[in-house]
Structure formats: C-alpha cells, structure tokens
C-alpha cells in the first residue's frame, strides 16, 4: 500500500525537479559557451604553426551527473520496445558540455589562447550497482597553449 504512494510521488518529484534542474543547467551552459567562444578547442596533436614559442600546460575538467527518477523510469519502459533513449541523451550531452566548459574556463584562467589535443572520456561510476546507468562521469582534458612568458 505504502509503495503505491511512494512510487508516484517519486515520479512526480523526479519529473518536476529534473526538468527544472535540466533547464537551468542548459541555460548556464549556453551562456558560458557563448562567453568562452574566443578560445578555440582543437583535437589535433600539433600546435598551430604560427605559434613558434609558447607555454604548454595540462588542463582538465570533470563532472558527475545523475539522471532523475522519472527519466530512469522512461528509459526502463524504452528498454522493452527498444529505440532511441532520448532521456539519457540529454544527460550525456549535458555532462560532456559541462566538462568541456570547466576545462576551457581553467585554460582561460591560465591565459591560454587555444587548447589543443582535447580528449574526452566517459565512464560509469555506479557500475555493478543493479543494472541502471544512474550516473556518469565525463572527463575532458587537453593542453592549454599560452604565449611565451619567461
């Protein structure tokens, strides 16, 4: 009996809070992405040839994001019929963009003009705990290139 009350309330609160947090996060991501447009990210291993002497430093950004109860429920339903799991797509997208932004902001703090050799890694940290994905970790790292100082 008590389960019949708990389950819908989890679904509803998951839906409301989840939607709210996701919208808020996307707003902040879009704003910070347009603020940091002046520093390009490259996945090339080399430095642009016009930079002959420069300082190089490793920068990294990571984030752990969790999906809400409502979306997990939807994904569970989706697993029966198969197809595109849209609710998890936004989770991974948010995590990846957030990690990249954190790396970029760290690079800008160090006075970088470009970040090369950017690598992005995704791992599930709640592995082995039941079968759900739940939360994922994204790490973005690269080399911040700044004009030669010393």
């Amino acid at each position, binding site marked *: 009996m008590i389960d019949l009350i708990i389950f819908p309330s*989890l679904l509803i*609160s*998951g839906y409301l*809070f*989840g939607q709210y*947090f*996701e919208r808020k*996060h996307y707003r902040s991501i879009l704003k910070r992405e347009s603020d940091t447009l002046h520093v390009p990210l490259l996945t090339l*291993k*080399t*430095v642009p040839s016009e*930079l*002959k*002497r*420069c300082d*190089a*430093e*490793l920068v*990294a950004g*990571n*984030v*752990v*994001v*969790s*999906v*809400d*109860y409502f*979306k*997990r429920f939807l994904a569970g339903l989706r697993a029966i019929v198969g197809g595109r799991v849209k609710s998890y797509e936004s*989770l991974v997208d948010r995590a990846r963009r*957030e990690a990249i932004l954190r790396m970029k902001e760290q690079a800008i703090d160090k006075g970088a003009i470009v970040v*090369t*050799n950017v*690598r992005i*890694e995704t*791992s*599930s*940290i709640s*592995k*082995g*705990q039941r079968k759900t994905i*739940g*939360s994922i*970790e994204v*790490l973005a*790292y*690269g*080399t911040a*290139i700044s004009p*030669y100082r010393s």
Partner: protein
Amino acid sequence: MMITNMETVPGKTIIKHFGLVQGNTIRAKHVGRDIMAGLKNIFGGELTGYTELLSESRQEATDRMVKQAQTLGANAVLNVRFSTSSVTQGAAELYAYGTAVLLE
C-alpha cells in the same frame, strides 16, 4: 615541471627520454556522499561530492606520476593519458601515465 598531453612542446627540444612514469590511486566514496547521491538520483543533477572526489583523486594520481618523474631527473611529462576503471563496487581506480623527458 611541465605536464602536457602533446607529444612535443613547441619551441623546445627533448634532450633525454626517461620512459614511462605512472601514478594511480583507488578511492572509495563515503556513506554521507552516498546518501546525498541517492537523493540526487531522484531529482537528477550534478553529484558535486563525486565530482570533487574524482578530481581530487585524479590530482593525487598526477602528483604521484610527477614525483616519479622528478626522482628520474625529468623536467617535463609529455603525452599524459588518464584512465578510470571500477575495481569493486563503490570504488574507482584513477590512473595517470605519461612519458618523462628532459627538455632543453
């Protein structure tokens, strides 16, 4: 100590190679953080405790790698890579490795 994930540093030449240096650490999350994470699993959003935990451990792995490079007499670590693996339930291994070199 210069740490980059590129294979060379522009404007500098490599005098000597010292080979692979590495650092790792295995961290478990504590119960308080687990309870907060349990709540976040309902509402969704960032698990700040885990983010901090993982970035601290990654820093620790990097520090160990740098220490090893210093004992070899290197002044830079190039081509650094990170990897994460889950060893047992609730614990994660953070691993950093790279090539220690002496730059001019």
